[in-house]
């Protein structure tokens, strides 16, 4: 059922932020010698079909706690960089061996396996550097910037997304095959969690607010892919948000637990996420919590197709 909250135009909010983020990413990765590595990095980061969900989550969380979006933009870009890096490596022949990503050839299919590995290796440090160089030091204390870097490094590391990919690659039906929910939490939940927490930290959130954002983000991240999974199984997906091939069979909750269980997991996660947002009501926050509510609704309902505004639209609007 739709949310009872006042309506919020998430579609406009989202598409306008995507344009701003892609513009910033465009200038963050300029091509110079040796050109091919920069081209490989740009190919995956500046994909038109990138929904930039991590970046949006980060900016919305920063605004929620009263921060200016400009505090969060560098970290939002960094999140897109590390996300692209991990997707490039996940697609490699020795991993998922994917030839398509977001509807076009994967990085290694275009640039070769060696360049794809190096493009990923370069995007991780670029993300950290981008945060240090561009976060406004006059508004965000150095401790907060360090915390954000620590948070991102933990998320992409051996207990986070790397662990998720490792578990996802365990042979199916093997002795140590992984719990599909754990794979989803590691591969998708942790990045969404990190995005929300980083936004909160940059916006000056207190500890309790950060923890609420952490639980909200994690729930939404997992919820989002379980819905993807359900939609894929129902084969009734519309438009460019169609089956993304982002899940291997081992990580399919529907296949492992059945359609009914998957649907109830979606409901539980939605409730969890909603509960966390309750702590952000009242005059201190005003309407600033609305983007996160409608983000949650979108994760379940997919009421529109996210597209990048064309440049012309952006400038006219």
């Amino acid at each position, binding site marked *: 059922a739709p949310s009872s909250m006042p309506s919020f135009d998430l579609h406009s909010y989202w598409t306008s932020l995507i344009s701003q983020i892609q513009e910033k990413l465009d200038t963050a990765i300029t091509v110079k010698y*040796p050109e*091919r*590595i*920069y081209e490989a*990095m740009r190919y995956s980061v500046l994909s038109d079909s990138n929904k930039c969900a991590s970046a949006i989550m980060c900016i919305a969380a920063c605004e929620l706690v009263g921060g200016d979006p400009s505090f969060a933009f560098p970290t939002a870009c960094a999140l897109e960089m590390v996300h692209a*890096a*991990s997707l490039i*490596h996940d697609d*490699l022949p*020795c*991993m998922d061996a994917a030839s398509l990503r977001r509807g076009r050839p994967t990085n290694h299919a275009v640039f*070769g*396996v*060696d*360049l794809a*590995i*190096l493009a*990923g*290796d*370069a*995007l*991780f*440090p*670029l993300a*950290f*550097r981008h945060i*240090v*160089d561009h976060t406004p030091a006059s508004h965000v*204390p*150095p*401790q907060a*910037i*360090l915390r954000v*870097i*620590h948070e991102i*490094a*933990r998320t*992409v*590391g*051996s*207990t986070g997304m*790397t*662990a998720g*990919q*490792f*578990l996802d*690659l365990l042979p199916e039906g093997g002795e140590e095959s992984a719990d599909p929910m754990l794979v989803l939490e590691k591969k998708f939940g942790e990045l969404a969690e990190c995005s929300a927490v980083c936004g909160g930290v940059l916006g000056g959130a207190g500890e309790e607010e950060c923890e609420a954002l952490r639980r909200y983000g994690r729930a939404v991240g997992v919820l989002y892919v379980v819905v993807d999974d359900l939609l894929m199984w129902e084969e009734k997906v519309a438009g460019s948000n169609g089956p993304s091939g982002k899940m291997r069979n081992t990580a399919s909750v529907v296949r492992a637990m059945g359609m009914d269980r998957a649907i109830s997991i979606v409901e539980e996660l939605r409730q969890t996420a909603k509960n966390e947002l309750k702590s952000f009501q009242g005059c201190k926050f005003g309407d600033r919590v609305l983007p996160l509510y409608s983000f949650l609704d979108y994760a379940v309902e997919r009421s529109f197709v996210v597209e990048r505004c064309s440049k012309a639209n952006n400038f006219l609007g």
Partner: protein
Amino acid sequence: VALGTEAAIDFDFEGYMLSKAASVNKALDLALPLVHPERIHEAMRYSLLLGGKRVRPILCLAACELVAGEGTLAIPSACAVEMIHTMSLIHDDLPCMDNDDLRRGHPTCHRAYGEHIAVLAGDALLALAFRHLADLANYPVGFSPELVLRTVAELSRCVGTEGLVAGQVVDLESTGLDEAISIEQLEFIHYHKTAALLEASVVLGAIVGGATDSEIVRLRRYAQCIGLLFQVVDDILDVTKSSQELGKTAGKDLASDKTTYPKLLGLARSREFAEELLRDAKLQLEGFNSLTAAPLFHLSNYIAYRQK
């Protein structure tokens, strides 16, 4: 006091290296516990803890001591540069890159654990380096977060497309060509692939030790010299030593038509060039107290005169 032969006699370099390597090894062991999922952490520990001379972390500690005297401040930086170094070795050794089977006398990570785990272990070590470096809990209470942020910026510059990765890309692009590459291209490769991380090691240590900007400039130059020196010596060793002596495949450069200093300059001129770089490196240390500069002085000798 000028750096003379006296310092060379009085300083127990071997003892210094052993004690520093031991404290680095202990810190690395603690920084990377064997947690779930175990296999990925096993692979990381295998590559990080098995062997290695710890030249980079020791450079980091020595640079910190040179400007501040208190080397423990640089332990997180020392761990971070060794994690980055290990990560770059794991990825460089992959079949799609240099395709090496042997590293530090043991099977390479992908040989021991499989290619997918090697890619992931490298990625995870890269992440861990920044996680460890940026964690204020790893520094004394009240330590300047601004200085820590500067180390993060410096390290990230040296790892990416202005450092390690750029060197690796140009190296890959110039392998298998019919003709030898120019000396400028060869220097580009080594300044990025090798010197950049040695530079980061020294500069990170200097930053947390509270070095002045002019001290950092001199130490940066020192590191660039020994970085290039390291590679010139490596090229020389590749043609003069056996695999067994090196603990890695010897003669590989010759077999793969890779451009090296001996090939471009000849063995004698390569050795001269190494001497020039060593002199330049030592020149940068003049003006520092010869006693506290002794470790860096001897490290440059060590890099120049090592046998493997």
